[in-house]
């Protein structure tokens, strides 16, 4: 199991996810019915409706791809920790992951 910490309005919640389900973080958050995560494009880095902040992560978490950076660039406001949740695969590389939800 992988643990993912979710921060929303200052409150932390920890979710446990099996690491072999091939889920991405957008699918996890959408499944938990967080309203700010719409995931309109189904995870293709084409809509930016899954924008979140990564507050903490093990170095093994891969960085954003060119496509992800292109999409983030179109948003009116981003942070240095901004990522698209759909581009974060929940696999064995995930440790100490804490993400914060932002208004989308």
């Amino acid at each position, binding site marked *: 199991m992988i643990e993912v910490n979710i921060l929303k309005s200052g409150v932390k919640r920890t979710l446990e996810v099996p690491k072999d389900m091939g889920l991405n973080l957008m699918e996890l958050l959408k499944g938990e019915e967080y309203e700010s995560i*719409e995931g*309109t*494009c189904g995870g*293709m880095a*084409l*809509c*930016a*409706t899954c924008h979140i902040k990564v507050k903490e992560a093990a170095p093994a978490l891969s960085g954003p791809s*060119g496509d992800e*950076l*292109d999409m983030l*660039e*179109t*948003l*009116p*406001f981003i942070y240095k920790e901004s990522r698209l949740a759909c581009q974060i695969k929940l696999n064995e590389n995930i440790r100490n992951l804490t993400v914060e939800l932002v208004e*989308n």
Partner: protein
Amino acid sequence: MSIKIKTDIAIIGAGPVGLFAIFEAGLLKMRCHLIDYLPQAGGQLSEIYPKKPIYDIPGYPTVMAQELVDNLVHQAEPFNPGYTFGERIETLEKRAEKDFHLVTNLGTEIEASAVVIAGGLGCFEPRKPEVEGLTRFENGKGVNYMILDPEQYRGKKTIIAGGGDSALDWAIYLSELCSELTLVHRSESFRGTPDSVEKVMALADSGKISLHLNTNLSTVHGNGKLNGVTLLNTRSNEEVLVDTDYLVPLFGLSPKLGPMEGWGLNITKNAIEVNTDDYSTNIPGVWAIGDINTYKNKLKLILCGFHEAALMSHSVYQYIHPGVKYTMKYTTVNGISSF
């Protein structure tokens, strides 16, 4: 003066499903008028993934999303549909059976015998930057989030904000029309299509575009109408005031259910409940097809929306012409009778 339109069927949403509904209704000799907040037809396909291939449209092993939209528009042409783009339906009122009245945010009125909601995931709404007072200048007072008619900007001073392809492409296009074109982007460089980036840089070098990188919109000014914007350089912390007629923030669009929530429809989880016999809603005379509806085992797929459009059309025909018997004919038998 506000515009008044009369039609058999008002279709809210010009995505693939709304477009195919024109064809299905046309076979039954019913005329359609479509309204979409986007400046173009195609819904999610043209707005989110125009250049992606789709593999599950029957009969097309693969088709590009924009090509499918173009074909649907072409296929609907014989039935002479009307289109209102760049406007959002705000109110839907049933005055009597077969007498519906719809009004857009810009005051266009549509009278229709039946209404079909093909609103997809909702109305594509612009993402707005957080600048105090920005909304004061919306609706014709200087701040636009989409470019509907480029001619409006001819000879005017315009500021475009944003770093994606649409900001770059419009900056290139409008630099020819505007008396002054300012492009504001928060980062050091652009990540758009290399060709567009090159063109913008060349236009900046030749003085046709005034380029402000590492810059955010800080304050908007004007008395009733926008006349200036203060820009903040985030590196130097210096502010400059730029005189302008228009500010166009281009930060993409994201779908929101919006005004539909207040129309008296049964809505569950952002989707309209329908009867799967004919995709009618709880309001007689109003149907909902495509991604906007929900029922047991619903699949948000284009092909399912097409099927819903066919069943809906026959049901609308019965509603508008009660008691008139209609025998379905194959298009191969009779061809298409345009009107």
